[in-house]
């Protein structure tokens, strides 16, 4: 059968489940809430980044324009360019002269390109066509290519999409006196490198779209592929790409180019959720520890007093005595009430048991007395044997429980004689062998009678075996030495003593000292020597002197 769980297990389980449920709810609420917050914050972050970036970019553009305007003041460049165009208009310049002037322009342009560190630096003529281009991306701007945003204003900027790629262009007019002789244009390729630079500035992904097509992106390839052909949808605040949700924002719009910043909401949400989980995990750990300690303490306040009560009850049960009443636990009013109720119950039960026992003992004594009364010679025999057995037992330092067993067993030892008829019992003269056989049956008969009363179980060996002898010549079983219970041996000695010192129909009572001698003679064969010794020690010396009161009287007195 399954035993019910301990109380501490129950309280632990209840608190743990409660804590777990609360934490789960908190976690769900937190994660759902965190996602919303992350979405808002990512959108807001991009907005702020855009604002900051726009401000910075405006300033940067201004500074760039200023520096380009400064570069456009290069006198050698201007002189070479103007001379070139003047001469080529005036007459066809000689080949060497043309290449010399063009070479000067190229040289100056290269110097400026090195200064600006630009992807591309170009000198345009007054109609906006490329005259000379230099820099890493110069191939994208072949000579003669029209750069439409070179408007002729003193400075200009914008985005131009050419077959060789898209460029952000800033430029300044090359002025001579009051006329434009051309322009200086600095181009930045809108390529992956530029996107990466922007991305690190804006701390978000960057997608560059020119004429509706993605030309550069810092997003993973699969996400970029997902975006292809649907770039305008980035104008929405959020967009699902490659299975992840992104916040997007238009960073720069210039001519055909749009530059978007994107941030993965899922990524940020994952981080936020992980943070929340970590925080919640530590809270949970703390909560579980506290709950464990708390419930353990709570359980202990209940189980400790209960354990104490149980232990006390076990002690009481073992001692078979209500002497130690339960003390109040002092920890729980209910438990104290339980202990008090238990004490009352135990006291009641003890009283009832004592009463029952007294009733039994009374009835048995009555039975024994009735038996003794059948023969005047044996009157008081059972009581005397009982008293003498207790004296011997006490001398042998038996426990109170054993003495009690001894007392009652001795009282009943001859109860089996009820089954004998008065003839045999009161016969004067020698018994026949058959009669003696009947006499020898009385211990077994007595045990059979008393076996009906469960309460008398401990006394049965005394009744059944009080005629066994250490030498094995006793009856009914002929047990030897230690096989005979001590109580039975004691009663055997006491019975023999009382029989010898009492008068019988066929002989007078013998002297106590005579009886003692007799006992000593048969000690070791018929009687247990230790018991005989105990008896001799226990009987007061006065009883052995002829002047003192006979032992009978002493015993009778003692019985009272």
């Amino acid at each position, binding site marked *: 059968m399954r035993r019910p769980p301990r109380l501490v297990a129950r309280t632990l389980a209840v608190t743990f489940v409660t804590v777990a449920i609360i934490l789960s709810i908190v976690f769900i609420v937190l994660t759902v809430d965190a996602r919303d917050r992350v979405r808002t914050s990512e959108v807001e972050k991009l907005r702020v980044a855009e604002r900051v970036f726009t401000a910075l970019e405006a300033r940067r553009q201004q500074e760039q324009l*200023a520096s380009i*305007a*400064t570069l*456009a*003041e*290069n*006198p*050698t460049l*201007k*002189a*070479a360019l*103007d*001379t070139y165009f*003047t*001469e*080529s*208009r*005036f*007459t*066809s*310049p*000689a080949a060497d*002269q043309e290449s010399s*002037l063009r070479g*000067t322009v190229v040289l100056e342009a290269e110097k400026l390109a090195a200064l600006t560190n630009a992807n591309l630096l170009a000198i345009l003529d007054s109609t906006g066509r490329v005259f000379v281009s230099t820099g890493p991306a110069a191939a994208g701007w072949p000579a003669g290519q029209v750069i439409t945003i070179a408007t002729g204003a*003193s400075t200009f900027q914008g985005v131009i999409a050419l077959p060789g790629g898209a460029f952000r262009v800033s430029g300044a007019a090359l*002025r*001579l*006196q*009051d*006329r434009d002789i051309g322009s200086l244009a600095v181009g930045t390729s809108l390529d992956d490198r530029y996107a990466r630079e922007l991305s690190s500035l804006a701390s978000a992904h960057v997608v560059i779209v020119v004429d509706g097509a993605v030309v550069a992106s810092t997003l993973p390839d699969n996400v970029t592929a997902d975006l292809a052909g649907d770039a305008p949808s980035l104008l929405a605040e959020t967009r699902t790409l490659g299975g992840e949700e992104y916040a997007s924002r238009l960073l720069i719009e210039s001519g055909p180019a749009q530059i978007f910043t994107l941030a993965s909401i899922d990524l940020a949400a994952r981080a936020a959720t992980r943070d929340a989980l970590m925080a919640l995990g530590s809270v949970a750990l703390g909560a579980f520890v506290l709950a464990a300690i708390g419930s353990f303490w709570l359980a202990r306040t209940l189980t400790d007093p209960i354990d104490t009560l149980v232990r006390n009850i076990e002690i009481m049960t073992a001692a078979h005595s209500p002497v130690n009443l339960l003390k109040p636990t002092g920890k729980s009013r209910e438990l104290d009430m339980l202990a008090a109720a238990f004490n009352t119950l135990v006291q009641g039960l003890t009283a009832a048991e004592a009463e029952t026992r007294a009733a039994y003992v009374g009835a048995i004594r009555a039975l024994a007395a009735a038996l003794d009364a059948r023969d005047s010679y044996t009157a008081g025999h059972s009581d005397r044997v009982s008293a003498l057995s207790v004296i011997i037992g006490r001398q042998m330092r038996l426990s109170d429980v054993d003495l009690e067993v001894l007392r009652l067993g001795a009282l009943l030892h001859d109860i089996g004689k009820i089954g004998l008829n008065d003839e045999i019992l009161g016969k004067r003269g020698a018994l026949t062998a058959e009669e003696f056989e009947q006499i020898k049956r009385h211990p077994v008969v007595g045990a059979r009678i008393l076996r009906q009363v469960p309460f008398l179980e401990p006394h049965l060996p005394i009744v059944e075996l009080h005629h066994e002898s250490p030498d094995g010549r006793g009856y009914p079983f002929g047990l030897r030495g230690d096989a005979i219970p001590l109580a039975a041996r004691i009663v055997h000695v006491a019975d023999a003593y009382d029989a010898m010192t009492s008068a019988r129909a066929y002989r007078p009572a013998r002297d106590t000292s005579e009886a003692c001698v007799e006992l000593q003679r048969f000690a070791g064969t018929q009687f247990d020597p230790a018991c005989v010794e105990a008896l001799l020690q226990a009987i007061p010396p006065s009883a052995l002197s002829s002047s003192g009161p006979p032992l009978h009287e002493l015993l009778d007195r003692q019985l009272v």
Partner: protein
Amino acid sequence: MRPVYRTLRVLLLAAVAAGLLVVSSSAPHGQEASGIRGRVQIGIPIATRRPTTAYPTRSVPSARLAPESERRNVVVYLRNTQPQTVAPMRVAIRQRDESFTPRVVAVTVGSDVEFPNDDPIYHNVFSLSRVKNFNLGRYPRGETRRVRFDRPGVVKVFCEIHSHMSATVMVFDHPWFTVPNDAGAFELTGLPSGDRQVTAWHERLGDTTVNVRVELGRTVQTDFILPVPEP
């Protein structure tokens, strides 16, 4: 390809202008010398604005004089002539208010052009032109340096310090050239008779050429309107 194209365009314009010229040519005035007289008109307003540059003017105040007429920046000359023996001239281009004044001069071969510095700051004069490649270096106020132009052609002159300054010196190996006066009037005299080409050139507005039949004792009237319209 461009020079060929340009020549074609010039010829086309010249043909149109010649038609107009024939209609508008006036009768001879009875002078012995044959010549061409006319006006140069500029069809668009030109404000002489100071350029917006990264280097604002420092010590020189903005132009206190009224700008010279743009017509003074035009040179009218006979084209495709045989080289003549000409007397050298002495001309000065002053550096004043961060400008070359005058901005356009026309001289004969062998002439000296002086570049006096009137500004309280240093100036430089240099040229990258094929006809005359020079650099006079930097020099302060009151100093002057000169250059002799030995070959015909156009010479662009710049200041290395002030990149917006420029001037043009046109060097001719014949005497038939002139710069109009403020009113735009010009006159070329003593021309050899025959079919001639006359060009009016402006540093920015471009040049236009017309065919003129020059006859002895007649003065042909021809007007130029600049800028040259883009085709």
